[in-house]
């Protein structure tokens, strides 16, 4: 079976879908791999490392795509790339299938079996393939590094002969995978960290990292069986805003990671709250790609609102492209490995499997995913 890995073309995407270490393991398992030249350059893996691992460097992108039975990549394919794909091949990547219906259609039309990495279920068994989590985790780290880098205050407390610097106050809104890692990283740097999330179970988790949970009584708030938050009612949103306002005004850094799976992110930090912060404060809006938690945040820009900088970069994992590539590549490896039959040397995406059912979007020319089928 031949795996093809093209270079990412998405603007600003520095990750790669396959790192040399995993390439080696796959080849040992019996795969053949062809990659486009420059595959890992942006994340620090030169071509030689791939060839050392046994990867063939294709002559051009077309060759890589057209010869592959299994295409691995980070981002959704360009329409042009879909043209090059072999009919019947499997294409694994983030796909955003809900919002990119036309892409799904053309993949189906081409006869490609498309696996969407965002749709990997959050089951115990699938954890090792859960790229959404692995990347969110790194994004959480990046938010804090970016905030520290833009914050005119240092994070830790210091008592020195030149005076005492109070620790910076960091407020993390949304303590899912990314939020928790943000909390941990900010704590490490010595900040005073507070956090809020609508899911009540999170309070204990926040405290388990040594941070303070801001108690805001919103009434009943549920979570889905995948562990995602349910959307708040408008009244609840108002309650939350009221509860947060004071904390935000006193914070030097606010990091928002509040997301709702499959819906636009809630708008929870208002312009008023932004202006209540001290000049020089930093807000990092991690949800900016899915609509933004913060009023005034602009994708891929730092907006200065009266001295407060709102950092709205998308694709945060790309900022630690090497680590992110390793993790993503591990997720893909685990996925391939899960369905690889070492004895028969067959790769078998059995339609009965839970994971396959959840993550495969198109197969044999049809859209097979229940959430898309009937649209």
């Amino acid at each position, binding site marked *: 079976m031949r795996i093809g890995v093209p270079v990412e073309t998405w603007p600003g995407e520095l990750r790669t879908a396959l790192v040399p270490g995993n390439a080696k393991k796959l080849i040992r398992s019996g795969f053949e791999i062809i990659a486009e030249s420059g595959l890992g350059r942006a994340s620090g893996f030169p071509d030689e490392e791939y060839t050392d691992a046994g990867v063939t460097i294709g002559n051009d992108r077309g060759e890589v795509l057209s010869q592959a039975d299994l295409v691995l990549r980070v981002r959704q394919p360009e329409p042009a790339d879909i043209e090059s794909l072999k009919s019947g091949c499997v294409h694994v990547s983030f796909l955003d299938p809900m919002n990119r219906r036309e892409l799904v259609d053309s993949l189906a039309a081409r006869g490609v079996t498309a696996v969407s990495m965002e749709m990997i279920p959050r089951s*115990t*068994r699938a*954890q090792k393939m859960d790229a959404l989590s692995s990347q969110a985790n790194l994004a959480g780290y990046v938010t804090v590094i970016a905030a520290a880098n833009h914050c005119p205050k240092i994070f830790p407390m210091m008592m020195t002969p030149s005076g005492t610097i109070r620790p910076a106050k960091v407020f993390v809104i949304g303590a899912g995978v990314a939020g928790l890692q943000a909390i941990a990283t900010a704590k*490490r740097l010595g900040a005073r960290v507070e956090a809020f999330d609508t899911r009540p179970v999170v309070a204990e988790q926040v405290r*388990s*990292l040594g941070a303070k949970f801001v108690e805001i009584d919103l009434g009943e708030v549920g979570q889905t069986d995948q562990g995602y938050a349910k959307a708040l009612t408008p009244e609840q949103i108002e309650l939350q805003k009221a509860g947060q306002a004071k904390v935000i005004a006193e914070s030097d850094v606010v990091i928002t990671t509040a997301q709702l799976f499959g819906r636009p992110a809630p708008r929870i930090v208002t312009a008023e709250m932004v202006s209540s912060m001290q000049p020089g404060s930093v807000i990092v809006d991690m949800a900016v790609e899915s609509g933004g938690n913060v009023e005034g945040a602009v994708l891929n820009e730092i907006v200065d609102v009266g001295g407060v900088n709102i950092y709205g970069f998308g694709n945060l994992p790309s900022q630690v492209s090497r680590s992110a590539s390793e993790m993503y590549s591990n997720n893909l490896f685990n996925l391939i490995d899960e369905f690889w039959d070492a004895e028969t040397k067959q790769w078998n995406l059995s339609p009965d499997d839970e994971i396959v059912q959840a993550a495969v979007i198109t197969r044999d020319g049809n859209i097979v995913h229940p959430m898309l089928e009937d649209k």
Partner: protein
Amino acid sequence: MSEELIGAVYIVSAILFVFGLKLLGSPATAVRGNQLSTLGMLVAVVVTLGSTDIIDYRWIAIAAALGAVVGIVAAQRVAMTGMPEMVALFNGSGGLASLLVGWAALGMEGAEGDSQSAFTIITVLLSILIGGVTFSGSLVAWAKLSETMPSGAISFPGQQFVSLILLVATIGCGAAMLAQPDAGTAMLVYAVIALSVLLGVMAVIPIGGADMPVVISLLNSYSGLAACAAGLAINNTILIVAGALVGAAGIILTNIMCKAMNRSLSNVLFSGFTASKSAAKVEGEVKPISPDDAYLILEAASSVVMVPGYGMAVAQAQHVVRELGELLEEHGTEVSYAIHPVAGRMPGHMNVLLAEANVPYDQLIEMDDINRRIENVDVAIVIGANDVVNPAAREDENSPIYGMPIINVDQARTVFVLKRSMASGFSGVDNPLFFKENTRMLFGDAKQSISHMIAEFKG
């Protein structure tokens, strides 16, 4: 020498024994303790030889000389690994001596009036009984340890019943002797001796070789009691005091040793019987353990793996965990931290906490690596982890978490699970680990439990 003077010297000798025993309990002073106790013995023997009661030294000289030679040769020849057997033999020899002293004391009886003969007879019988049990029990222990006989537990149907009969018979003989102090005494004495020796054998054969050190310690306590009984029989204070001291100290030591093996004394003594009867019943039973007892087991372990989970984070126990790890390492134990990839509630949760607590990165081990060598781990300490050590993921196809790789702590020799209750973890699945034979539940907040153990280590 006057009786008062001898008594005074005996007091000195008893003081030396007290100090000796006390100092033997701590590594820094143990050598001196043994020396003091040796001195105590020497003083007691010398002053006894000066007693006006003794009119003929020949027998004493010969017997003592022979005994000393045998003792010296045996003590010097024995290999370091053979120590427990040797102690068993010495102990048996001491028990036999008490038996003989008691027996010989029967010859003394005529000399004084009949007035206290009941007391004497009872004490003589006690010294014969305890001495005999000590003697034969020690021999069996020796034989099992040295593999002169099969070291496993030997049992046959009705064994306990036979033991009971023997005991009743012994008591019967004793009663008979008391009833008619003169008639047929000799035969009754022989019977009691034979019965005691048999009793000793019956008591020890059903116990497995691995438990022998505890048995020897118990028999050692008995031999102290035998000496005490002999002392009562011949009215010798130093025998009474030293014997009682050793008897009591031996029981405490036996108890300590049982705890270090995570057993109760009755479990050691009678497990040979019960094992055959109820093997399957154990499932479903949870065995709690106290931090003190957990300490004793840890202290004897040579490799320990810490398996932290979300509970460690909740308890904020990372600092005490590291401290316990350091203490164990200073103690010569190999310590590592096995991190399950999904332990906690965020990726790298355990890493953050352990790094905060300054656990060296080299000691962090990945799941696959630890699973490869988990069988050789003496104690796995599960600190507030649950799902990630749940064997149902490996064994129970119907479990919601079936197929998730776990850290196989259940395959370590002993597992401590530190948690507050029997509650389930994140996945809400019950955990059969808690019911395994080699699992001990250490209930309570993880930080407090570990602090307790640390205190034991330091105290």
